[in-house]
């Protein structure tokens, strides 16, 4: 990450954009005919963008998924839904602010939304624990998902976490148990569950709210068994090898589509979701509406059988 909230590979694009902006300002003030030059620069910009974004490495996508201006769960909630009522707490220990839960309406249809939330500035980053949930977060999410299921309310999940929090107290309060229980219970919740990976999908921390009927993934999101840094530290004994690990682990959306792990890749606005939150949210909203309409056609029994079959079939092996 370069200073000023942009990625190194975004720099030439941002510079060209600045130049075009300046030229437009200058032209309007001085009544000088620059339109042909502006058009040619804009063409150049588009070409440059296509060049950079058509061949992103997996590591570049990981960086985009972590972009400081990337839309987070609450951004999607405000752009996609109405009538959001946030609900808190696991009724046992605490309210984990790394996960946001609440009732919402999607074009008038009732739903529960559950999503990991990161902060933008130091204060909110700490408050949200960088999107890393504790056991009470998984328990809060499960409690509310069960409430939703009880009242026949479908569930939308947004995944964006660098991992479940690895801490002393998280272990004391049963991080493994909380994640295991969520995975098991979500597999039999009798309402549609639509999951969108909007940013980072790190390991058990993501899977702990990641079992459902439809798995959507934004173009530049990542999802893996371990973070590239974690994998590099273990297998290469060097965190700096994270870009290699990202390649080896095949963490990108196209990889996961090929492995039949996700159902669909959602395109991001040119330059990444951070360039246009509203457009990114519109794209997601369209898919949520379509997926929900599809799942609502199914009986509960069909829905649950389909969900079981989906996960039961994952795995590649040989039988000799």
């Amino acid at each position, binding site marked *: 990450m370069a200073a000023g909230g942009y990625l190194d590979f975004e720099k030439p694009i941002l510079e060209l954009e600045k130049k075009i902006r300046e030229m437009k300002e200058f032209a309007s003030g001085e009544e000088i005919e620059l339109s042909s030059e502006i058009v040619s620069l804009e063409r150049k910009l588009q070409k440059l963008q296509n060049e950079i974004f058509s061949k992103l490495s997996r590591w570049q996508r990981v960086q985009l998924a972590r972009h400081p201006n990337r839309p987070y769960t609450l951004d999607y909630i405000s752009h996609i839904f109405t009538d959001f009522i946030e609900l808190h707490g696991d009724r046992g220990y605490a309210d984990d602010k790394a996960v946001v839960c609440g009732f919402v309406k999607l074009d008038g249809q009732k739903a529960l939304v559950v999503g990991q939330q990161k902060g933008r500035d130091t204060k909110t980053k700490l408050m949200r624990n960088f999107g890393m949930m504790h056991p009470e977060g998984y328990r809060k999410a499960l409690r509310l998902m069960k409430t939703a299921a009880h009242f026949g309310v479908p569930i939308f999940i947004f995944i964006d976490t660098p991992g479940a929090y690895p801490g002393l107290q998280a272990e004391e309060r049963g991080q493994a148990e909380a994640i295991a229980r969520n995975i*098991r219970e979500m597999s039999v919740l009798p309402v549609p569950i639509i999951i969108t990976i909007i940013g980072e999908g790190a390991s058990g921390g993501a899977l702990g709210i990641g079992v459902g009927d439809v798995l959507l993934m934004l173009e530049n999101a990542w999802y893996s068994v371990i973070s590239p840094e*974690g994998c590099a530290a273990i297998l290469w004994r060097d965190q700096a090898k994270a870009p290699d690990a990202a390649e080896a682990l095949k963490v990108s959306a196209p990889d996961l589509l090929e492995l039949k792990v996700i159902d669909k890749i959602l395109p991001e606005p040119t330059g990444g979701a951070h360039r246009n939150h509203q457009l990114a949210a519109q794209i997601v909203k369209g898919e949520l509406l379509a997926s929900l309409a599809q799942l609502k056609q199914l009986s509960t029994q069909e829905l649950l059988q389909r969900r079981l079959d989906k996960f039961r079939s994952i795995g590649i*092996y040989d039988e000799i």
Partner: protein
Amino acid sequence: MEWFRRKPQPPPTERKEIPDGLWTKCNSCGEIIYVRELEKSLWVCRKCSYHFRIRPEDYMAILLDEGSFQEYDAGLVSLDPLGFRDSKKYPDRIADARRKTMKNDAVICGIATMAGRQVSFAVMDFSFIGGSMGSVVGEKISRAIERAIDRLIPLVIVSCSGGARMQEGILSLLQMAKTSALLARLAQTKAPYVSILTNPTTAGVMASYASLGDVIIAEPGALLGFAGRRVIEQTIGQKLPDDFQTSEFFMNHGFLDKIVPRPELRSTVSSLLDYMSS
């Protein structure tokens, strides 16, 4: 309760813990022990109760009725879905492990009887790439759960694993969902599930089927938990207590039903199954 006083254990490795010679030294207290005697005590140190890591076959001998075990799905072998390579190519790593262990992957599954009662049984093998769970382990555990569902017989799993197998990427992670989804179906029947945790049971295995038993028991002094000790120390910037993430730690925090020394494992599991069967 000797094991409460033992020193912290060295981190588990893939090295063979069972010595070949006549005499061996206890990993925990340093006592020199006659191997024959260790065998008789089921590889538990007489002085300090340290539980040596033992082979899957040893657990079968300890837990199952002699000659009752019928293996299933032994022919499942790993492929290389990602074309993964670190210091070694994944297929080479698998080939080495198969040669070294004479097994096809990190779990053995089948049907057996325990005190005359038919059970679906699975035992993990740490010597096969750290007992890691990839597609094969996930599939074999899934089939073991399905056998318990189909026959309405108890499920007993002896876990010993460092977690999901990185070399199969996301497919390894989703074996947690596959096995847990089937355990949700098992939970809808009256077939009980006893999960036995041995040293170590951590990460993806601990955060899925190992933590989902109707009853969860652990051997004394086993390393259990979700995140690795080093990662936690780096994250919170402080040293962790010696007993952190041991069986005793999780017992005290309410996540285990019971800590059972190895010599009592067979009778305890049998009694539990008796209580949970009609």
